[in-house]
């Protein structure tokens, strides 16, 4: 029974369904451990999203919906992870706007869910981005200027 709930939740998150949070609450009520939800539903769901991108089925709209569903589930799981602070080893890309927020959600998820550390994430700055920073004054910091490396 709990496997079915976890699988349904994974599918709901991967497809960006609005009922993902309800399914997560039901799973918790059925005594499914938060860690199990994270590892058997959310991480496979995000893997599915990645596969969807590789197969040209998913792009920004589908990712947005999936991340929105993921966030709604993380909201109900958050009390279970209270006290676990995000890794200091993840470089933060600072900025404003929903695109940055989306990136922030994904980084936090990778940090918390998969245990990625800073050395897993490589940011490249080529000449054109340097030019962009100089000319357009995009509100972001280079990795080398980040407090975390």
């Amino acid at each position, binding site marked *: 029974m709990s496997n079915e709930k976890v699988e349904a939740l994974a599918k709901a998150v991967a497809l*960006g369904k609005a009922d993902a949070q309800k399914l997560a609450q039901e799973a918790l009520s059925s005594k499914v451990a938060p860690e199990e939800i994270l590892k058997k539903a959310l991480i496979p769901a995000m893997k599915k999203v990645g596969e969807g991108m590789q*197969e*040209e*089925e*998913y*792009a*920004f*709209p*589908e990712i*947005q*919906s999936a991340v*929105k569903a993921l966030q709604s589930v993380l909201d109900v799981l958050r009390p279970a992870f209270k006290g676990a602070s995000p890794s200091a080893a993840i470089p933060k890309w600072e900025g404003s*706007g*929903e*695109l940055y927020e*989306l990136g922030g959600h994904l980084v936090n998820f990778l940090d918390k869910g998969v245990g990625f550390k800073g050395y897993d994430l490589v940011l490249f700055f*080529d*000449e*054109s981005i340097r*030019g*962009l920073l100089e*000319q*357009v*004054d995009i509100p972001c910091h280079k990795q080398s200027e980040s407090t975390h490396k």
Partner: protein
Amino acid sequence: MTPKERLAAVDEFREPDVMPVFPRIMAQAVYGKGWMLKDISTQTEINGEKVAEAFLESMRTIGYDWPFGGYMDHGFGVPPLGGTLKIPDKFGISVSIDEPVIKDRSDWPSVQKKLPLDPMKDGRCRGTLESIKIISKDIGDTHPLFAAYYTGITAANILFRKVEALTLDASEDPEFVDELCKAATVWCNDWIRAQYEAGCNSFCYLGDHFGTDLISPKMGERFILPYIADTVAMVKKEFGQKTYLHIHGNFKGPKAYNLLERLVKEAGVAGLHMDEKHDPKWIRENIVEKWHIPAGIIVHGADPIVSGPPEKIDSHVKEAIEAIGQPGLGYFMAPSCQVLPDTPNAHFKAWVDATHKYGKYPLGSWKQA
């Protein structure tokens, strides 16, 4: 050959004298003149005389084969519908949207009451039409003068809705996005009609910055393909002109490539200008030789043109032209959107000069010169 004859030769797969060069659009000509966008645009007006001066001077000093009729940005139609524009103080790519026309989906019924939108009721459109008239009169019939704008979901983004909201709409409420695309394409077509009536004498140049950068090929079939087909048909029927498309995204995957093929074979796109993800060899093998339509090539990456020096630009252009091989018919040189508008005029000039040098036909004949 005049530049107009040169473009016609490319379009008909005949030998031009030299490969023509498509200008860097948007703010480049304005910055090249030493002005900022606030010097030519406000929320409600564009100074057509200044824009025409900048674009004509850009064409002549840099050596482009044609000018754009005006400074085309993402703000047309927005202020009359209640949105506001962000006019950059520094070197932004273009004017962008500050407050969108539709902040929430519930705003749509009230916006619909203001449609269809007459381009002549937007002072920025009137200024641009004035620029087209001045440029058209100046260049006569020797240079092509394209009409240009965006259609489908790109037009819906520009006219109505910020990109993050619109892409979420596409996933959660696609019927709503259908409505926005339809209304925005009606506006696009009217805006293009006005440009032809003001003096544009050549192809229509459509831009699509969603492509596969932002949406999947499946969504592209719904939110891009039918609207491009609609505008292509209108331009052909009412003005007897072809439409070229500049589209963003990686089209090398099978589903994306199928969308591109449908844009050509079903929608009737007559020429393509892909982004920097597609090198000249890919363009040759997958577009020009396969579908027998003209296409733009770009030097790989933006860096050589942005950073120079001219000698490096020269060698990159040489490499790009050599990659298309001989006889090399059906190509024009085109800019990458990653080439920032504030790039020095000298770099653009080096790019154009190198194209005219290494793009002398028959290709390769520069070696004997």
